[in-house]
């Protein structure tokens, strides 16, 4: 059993300043996670060398892998800090902000691009009318079970962080919004607007910009079958595109 917990954090004071590394060491306690260690450091923030410093800035909310806000690179791999258990990590533990989003401060990043992508693929079901539209059609149970898997997406951004096609040189929207298009297109009411979502996926940065490296499905903390969703959207856009080409 180690006597201490050592942490190495890539910090950045402002969105435009250059990053630097700081090391911390706190007495070992069993059954800690990365968040609880960061909270422990914040009680008396000083570096391993004993120099007083500011507490590390990071995002968190639920602490049970549901909110999606505490995603960061832990020992080089994007994952949720709340379920990253200290006892299963190699020390010193390296914490970095995710690399595909602009850094706000330290480990906190701005994931606005993910929400913009959800808007782009129309990741919702329009049910508002000027009168009561009544109950929607029922959904077959096996389909509901599949849809439930996709509804677990927490927009954490891990799938984008591990994707070699998501970077400054490409406009690829990444796996999460594609899987959400699949979710809403499979919903009996959402299917009424399926064409609009497919059109969004056929535009630049859509499903065809995927490179099939399939890192996303391994990085997803909710085990969402992302590559299956992507392939389903490939199939749907194939049918839709050909129909559109030869249709009226």
């Amino acid at each position: 059993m180690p006597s201490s917990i050592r942490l190495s954090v890539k910090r950045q004071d402002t969105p435009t300043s250059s990053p630097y590394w700081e090391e911390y060491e706190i007495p070992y306690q069993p059954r800690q996670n990365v968040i609880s260690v960061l909270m422990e450091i914040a009680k008396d923030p000083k570096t391993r060398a004993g120099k007083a410093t500011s507490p590390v800035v990071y995002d968190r909310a639920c602490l049970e892998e549901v909110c999606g806000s505490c995603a960061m690179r832990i020992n080089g791999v994007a994952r949720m800090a709340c379920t990253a258990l200290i006892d299963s990590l190699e020390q010193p533990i390296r914490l970095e902000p995710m690399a595909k989003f602009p850094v706000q401060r330290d480990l906190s990043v701005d994931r606005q691009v993910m929400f913009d992508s959800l808007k782009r693929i129309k990741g919702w079901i329009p049910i508002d009318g000027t009168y009561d539209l009544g109950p929607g059609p029922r959904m077959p149970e096996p389909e509901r079970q599949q849809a439930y898997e996709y509804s677990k997406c927490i927009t954490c951004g891990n799938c984008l962080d591990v994707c070699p096609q998501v970077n400054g040189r490409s406009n690829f929207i990444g796996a999460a919004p594609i899987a959400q298009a699949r979710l809403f297109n499979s919903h009996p009411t959402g299917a009424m607007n399926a064409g609009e979502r497919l059109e969004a996926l056929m535009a630049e940065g859509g499903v065809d910009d995927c490179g099939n490296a399939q890192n996303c499905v391994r990085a997803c903390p909710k085990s969402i079958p992302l590559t299956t969703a992507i392939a389903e959207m490939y199939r749907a856009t194939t049918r839709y595109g050909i129909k559109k080409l030869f249709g009226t």
Partner: protein
Amino acid sequence: MTSDRNFWVRRLHSLSGIVPIGGFLAFHLYENSAASRGADAYNEMTHRLQTLPGAVAAEILVIALPLLFHGIYGLFIAGTAKPNLYSNGYVRNWMYFLQRVTGVVVFAFILFHYWTTRLVQLTDHESLDLFRQVQSAVANPWIYAFYIAGILSATFHLANGIWSFSIVWGLTVGPRAQRRMLYISAVVFVALSVVGVRSISAFRL
């Protein structure tokens, strides 16, 4: 139609890799295995192909133009990639990386290959003895190595391309279907590689 442009350009890139380019590659590796039957058989075969009616038109429309489109747009696609093998050393991530590397290698090779074995025939009638021409070229171990690299890059790129083609067009959706397609593409890679490497090796005998 404007918003679908990206879709169709990408799909044309995917399709052109299989038809006609993939089909041509398989045919090309197969026809060149005539080299193992000697210089006369080989030169007779190339002469017969080149004097087929419409050979030049087919060469431009079915081979050269699709290859140029697939190659140049492929370079653009490869340019948008940012490989991350160090933190994600999975098999599929390697395939993603190798697909781009082999694409660049084989495109460079094809330009060299086309220049030295086909375009040269337009000016230099000595080179109508194509067998000797290739034989003297691959006598140089570096050019021979370039040929081997070019052939293996082409067969890998096609085999792995069949795997991703079947996802792009919606044939293999789930992980099980994709694994089966992986086995099929592995067989394609080995079979075409054996035929191709044996053909070029025949020029070294």
